[in-house]
């Protein structure tokens, strides 16, 4: 059975045998950083291609099909093009902030990777306040976007950044409350414990209707938080040309673009961890045979499968819905989603206290 557990363990033992604990830790950090960067590059390529293929499928066309078999090298070619392009900085822009902004956005996305459990015992940092860490770090991305919008000295960028600020700050609340429902049920903020609590069934199935509501709210809120359609007001290209990244070109634009996809990946991994059992396989009650077969599928495959299912869902939204207007967007959050989440959290708390969940 393919397992990532043995790989990490072997590496750890080998390093500790050869070096002192401090040096071993440093080497491990370097390995992890290199792995994370590789993962980001690969994810960027895969997700962009996936998005284009999903869009093509929905829009009754073929999508990229020239570079490589089935167009699989299309995004690699596009990346090469973006690297070769000149990164222009406008004359009137605030040069320091302008150049810093894409890295802030990217860095926030990278930081979020730390507490995520990719497979059984395959986690960079199992911090005991994992969920809190994710909530707090993910709200930082708005700073990068505001920075980009302001420093560009472009009216479209400013409007886009303004919208993005209002949007991310508002939808953070709903996403936070949705996450809290699982924290209430589990009684822990630690990612590994949340995953472990779902061994006998995923929270989506165990927690009755309130958790299903929380899941739906979470999906809506994170779609808005990642600036994806139908909430892509920050870059609404028919209104604001490209919103906050209008003035960016070349690799600096690519960083924004990449960060968007990484953010989608991150929020989907969190959704999969909290509601769909993380790397836990699907187990149904006392169907021993079925459960046994499910156990044979590696935990990393389970995790990636769930994550990509959620990613597909978010892509599906984008190619189906028109964009909301800015006041409707805020109405939706403050008049509907937030009251529902508050009430829902109360319900879940009652369920948790009374022990009504499975």
């Amino acid at each position, binding site marked *: 059975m393919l397992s990532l557990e043995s790989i990490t363990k072997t590496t750890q033992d080998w390093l500790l045998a050869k070096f002192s604990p401090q040096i071993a830790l440093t080497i491990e950090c370097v390995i992890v950083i290199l792995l994370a960067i590789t993962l980001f590059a690969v994810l960027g390529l895969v997700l962009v291609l996936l998005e284009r293929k999903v869009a093509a499928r*929905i*829009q009754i066309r073929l999508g990229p099909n020239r570079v490589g078999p089935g167009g699989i090298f299309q995004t690699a070619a596009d990346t090469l093009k973006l690297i070769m392009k000149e990164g222009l900085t406008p004359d009137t822009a605030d040069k320091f902030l302008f150049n810093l902004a894409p890295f802030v956005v990217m860095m926030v996305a990278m930081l979020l990777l730390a507490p995520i459990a990719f497979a059984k015992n395959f986690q960079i940092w199992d911090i005991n306040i994992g969920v809190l860490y994710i909530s707090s770090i993910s709200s930082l991305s708005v700073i990068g976007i505001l920075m980009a919008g302001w420093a560009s000295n472009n009216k*479209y960028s400013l409007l886009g950044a303004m*919208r993005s600020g209002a949007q991310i700050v508002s939808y953070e609340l709903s996403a936070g409350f949705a996450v809290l429902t699982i924290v209430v049920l589990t009684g822990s903020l630690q990612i590994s414990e949340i995953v472990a609590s779902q061994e006998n069934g995923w929270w989506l199935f165990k927690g009755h209707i309130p958790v299903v509501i929380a899941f739906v709210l979470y999906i809506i809120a994170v779609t808005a938080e990642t600036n994806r359609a*139908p909430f892509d007001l920050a870059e609404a290209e*028919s209104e604001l040309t490209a919103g906050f990244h209008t003035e960016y070109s070349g690799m600096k634009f690519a960083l924004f673009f990449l960060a968007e996809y990484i953010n989608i990946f991150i929020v989907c991994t969190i959704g999969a961890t909290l509601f769909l059992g993380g790397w836990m396989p699907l187990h149904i009650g006392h169907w021993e045979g079925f459960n046994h077969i499910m156990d044979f599928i590696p935990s990393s495959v389970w995790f990636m499968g769930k994550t990509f299912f959620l990613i597909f869902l978010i892509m599906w939204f984008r190619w*189906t*819905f*028109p964009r909301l207007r800015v006041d409707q967007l805020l109405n939706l959050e403050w008049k509907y989603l937030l009251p529902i989440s508050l009430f829902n959290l109360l319900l879940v708390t009652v369920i948790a206290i009374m022990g009504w969940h499975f």
Partner: protein
Amino acid sequence: MYNQTEIIKDTTNLGPEGELVVNMGPQHPATHGVLHLVVTLNGETIKKIEPHLGYIHRSIEKMCESLTYRQFIYVTSRMDYLSSHINNTACALLVEKGMQIEVPERAKVVRTILNELTRIASHELWIGAMAMDLGAFTPFFYAFREREMITDIMEETCGARLTMNYIVPGGLMYDIHPDFQTKVKAFVKQFKEKVTEYEDLVTGNVIFQSRTKGVGVLTAEDAISYGCSGPVARASGVSCDIRKIAPYDAYDRVEFDEIVETAGDSFARYIVRVKEMNQSIHIIEQLIDNIPEGDFVGKTKNVLKLAKGEFYQRVETARGELGVYIVSEGGTTPYRIKFRSPGFSNLSVLDHIAKGSKIGDLMATMGTLDLVIPDIDR
């Protein structure tokens, strides 16, 4: 405050507090062409819209004065390029009226079918483009699937896909392709099956409805006083279909409804166009099996000369009333020519109906006005 010729160096002091002047266009994804809107904003709210025209002015009217009555028709294909057939028809009808040329029945019926196909093609493109303005990309491809069939029919019949130049004074340039009837029937069948698909995708969508209902409301009085025509005026409850008021070609013998809505908002304008497509299909169905045999072009002199005087002909294009006005001195070319284009009048209401709304509403309003910039500038 705003002067086009002046480059503003000092950007610290621009207008009253909190006002932002944004140049939308001439290069902007939502203006669909080289329309330049100077939009004054207060936050997200629009305070003033000032359209600047002339980026694609080709002096078509002046050009027509040096072209003969056979030649000037082809230039008009380049005005409203989405309904070039109907533009050509207007010019041909005017010359026919001025010279009392008898048009064969076959030509009349074929012209009517082609005009309605053009109308459907134009509305299809509009649905896709407007949905894209509102942020939905997919309806564009669904609409273009059906539009492609029409352009294929046009290509086979007229030899061109966009600027057809098929209609000449007296009838048609040449006879229809033998496959014309089967292809049109296949299109009608496909359209009826598939139109529900993107109607489901757009019409019933909650977000689409909330983006368009009550947005950009144009009252009937305003529609009349600004000179609006076509679907824009009909959505406000103004009955103005030239095909009903002053039937030309074969419109007097077909049965169809004039679609009039009363709400006057962007959603009503959308509904009018969708229903109009179905009416066009209805017209085509009545005519396609009854194309009379006979000549496709009437007997005309080799050199066309209009008698001294003034001539006017109006037709219903996909965007509204197109009027052609010619002053003739009796020569082979017009002395003066003027086109009354529907887009120009429809654009003029934009400031009136979009003022006070959000930027997102401007896109919905502008999208449903269905502006074609070369039609406005000429």
